[in-house]
């Protein structure tokens, strides 16, 4: 028997059960990495990049302002937990809701333009939020940020109450929410609506001609993307017990984009691989020098020049070529 004939290579096996695989891998990383907090940071940023990828990777819209939804989620959860006596899940829910509404409003205006103008508008809105947060000190704490965010237990009143604030417990709390997000998102991307998103990415003009209301669908994609990014923001607040202005700063938007590009836009694994690689490199290199961006910079340049599909996209294509498979992917195999 020829090697590979009749058998699936490992990458195809992974693609066939991609959601399950990624859930398992994510369950293992806190035990592999030097410390749990790094793992937590990775999946929170992975979730953020996952949300970003809905818009950029699957709908083909380049946003340069996703710090806005990350920040809205982060600030809202922080403010709600400080000022009200609400439960943990309600605090997270408030963050997610406000970022969804924010994405709805901002997306409505940004989507009136295309391409570079769209990207600039998303960035302008994010910067407006940044300056608003820096001025509105009574609400946001201004420059020093929001501190002393309480740590309410995970509880359903009358049923159970559980302290999640050890590094490992907190990791698995975040993991559980990431798993729910992944399952939701995989479902959405495989649905008729998800297929239309990919149709718009491939050829918006034709999608319109087919009778799809491209404007409305892009808007929904924008909101969906902002919602998941907002969840990442809410979790980030709990993770570091602090919300700072830099979360709304345009550098954060750039970081999200870099992670997505590094991992592989339009792939399901990509955002996590991108976020993980980025943060791991940052962690190692910043141990040697504070100018870690000088080392990371060239890595990105090389990536974008030679692996425009990102790490996972490149690995996947390479695996397909080894197999000589005729691209089952086009069937909308968004999975791998």
């Amino acid at each position, binding site marked *: 028997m020829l090697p590979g004939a009749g058998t699936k290579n490992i990458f195809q096996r992974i693609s066939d059960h991609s959601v399950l695989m990624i859930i398992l891998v994510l369950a293992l990383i806190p035990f592999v990495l030097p410390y749990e907090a790094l793992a937590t940071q990775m999946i929170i940023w992975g979730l953020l990049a996952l949300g970003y990828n809905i818009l950029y990777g699957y709908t083909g819209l380049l946003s340069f302002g996703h710090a806005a939804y990350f920040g809205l989620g982060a600030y809202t959860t922080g403010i709600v937990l400080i000022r009200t006596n609400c439960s943990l899940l309600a605090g997270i829910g408030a963050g997610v809701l406000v970022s969804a509404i924010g994405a709805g409003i901002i997306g409505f205006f940004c989507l009136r333009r295309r391409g570079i103008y769209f990207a600039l508008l998303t960035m302008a809105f994010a910067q407006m939020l940044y300056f608003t947060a820096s001025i509105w000190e009574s609400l946001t704490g201004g420059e020093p940020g929001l501190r002393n965010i309480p740590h309410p237990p995970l509880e359903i009143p009358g049923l159970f109450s559980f302290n999640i604030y050890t590094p490992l417990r907190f990791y698995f709390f975040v993991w559980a929410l990431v798993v729910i997000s992944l399952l939701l998102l995989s*479902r*959405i991307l*495989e*649905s*008729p*609506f*998800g*297929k*239309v998103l*990919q*149709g718009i990415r*491939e*050829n918006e*003009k*034709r*999608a*319109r*001609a*087919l*009778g*799809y*209301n*491209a404007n409305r*669908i892009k808007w*929904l994609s924008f909101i969906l993307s902002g919602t998941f990014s907002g969840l990442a923001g809410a979790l980030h607040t709990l993770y570091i017990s602090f919300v700072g202005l830099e979360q709304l700063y345009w550098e954060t938007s750039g970081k999200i984009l870099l992670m997505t590009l590094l991992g592989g836009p339009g792939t399901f694994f990509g955002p996590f691989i991108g976020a993980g690689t980025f943060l791991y490199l940052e962690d190692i290199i910043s141990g040697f020098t504070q100018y870690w961006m000088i080392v990371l910079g060239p890595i990105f340049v090389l990536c974008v020049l030679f692996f425009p599909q990102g790490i996972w996209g490149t690995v996947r294509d390479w695996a397909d070529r080894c197999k000589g498979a*005729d*691209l*089952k992917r*086009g*069937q*909308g195999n968004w999975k791998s």
Partner: protein
Amino acid sequence: MEVLRTENLTKKFGGLAAVAHVDFHLERNEVQSIIGPNGAGKSTLFKLINGELKPTQGRIWFNGEEITGLEQHVISHKGIATSYQITNIFPKLTAFENVRLAVQSRRTSYNCWSKAEDHQTINEKAEEILQKIGLGEKRSNLAANISYGDQRHLEIGVALGTEPILLLMDEPTSGLSPIETRETVSLIKEIAKGLSVILVEHKMKVVMDLSDKITVLHEGEVIARGNPQEIRANEKVRRVYLGGVKE
């Protein structure tokens, strides 16, 4: 029964009228060709009918209902589809998914919970169209990877996927070899049994072969209309357009 009518339809780009005062009319299940030299306004006329462009002046009725100025996606849902001159498909989706997405547009856009591949009626319709355009064997190939001739057929298949009442075909045989052209002509004959077609085409043999009626455009204006024999015999048409063309 009349399926499409335009009245005084005009589109100006700056000072230039690409389409000027066109009164056009099409019967149900008729195949009508629009011919004319390059720049005569044929493609612009298509874009006005399918809603890609909004007219500067004039009105359009489809199936007895005025559609002037409606959004493109709304007009699509009324039953007008376009197959484009420059192949306009989804390159990184498979042939099947290209057609499936078109068929899906008639049934669901916002369902974000069920699996797209489990919608059997959509799959069956897409499969049927794929067979009709002769791409059944290539269903799993990426649209970008199939031959140009196949892409031209897929282009038509994607338009058919929306199950139109009226199909606007912009040079369906452009760039095809004589053999492929013959195949496409018989495909169009097959398709035209169940719907109305407006055809823009430069190959006179194709036009004469397929058309019930022909409208001749010149510098945005209608200069003649009639059946193929009448157009062939028309002195003015021979002068501005058919002049050098051998039949």
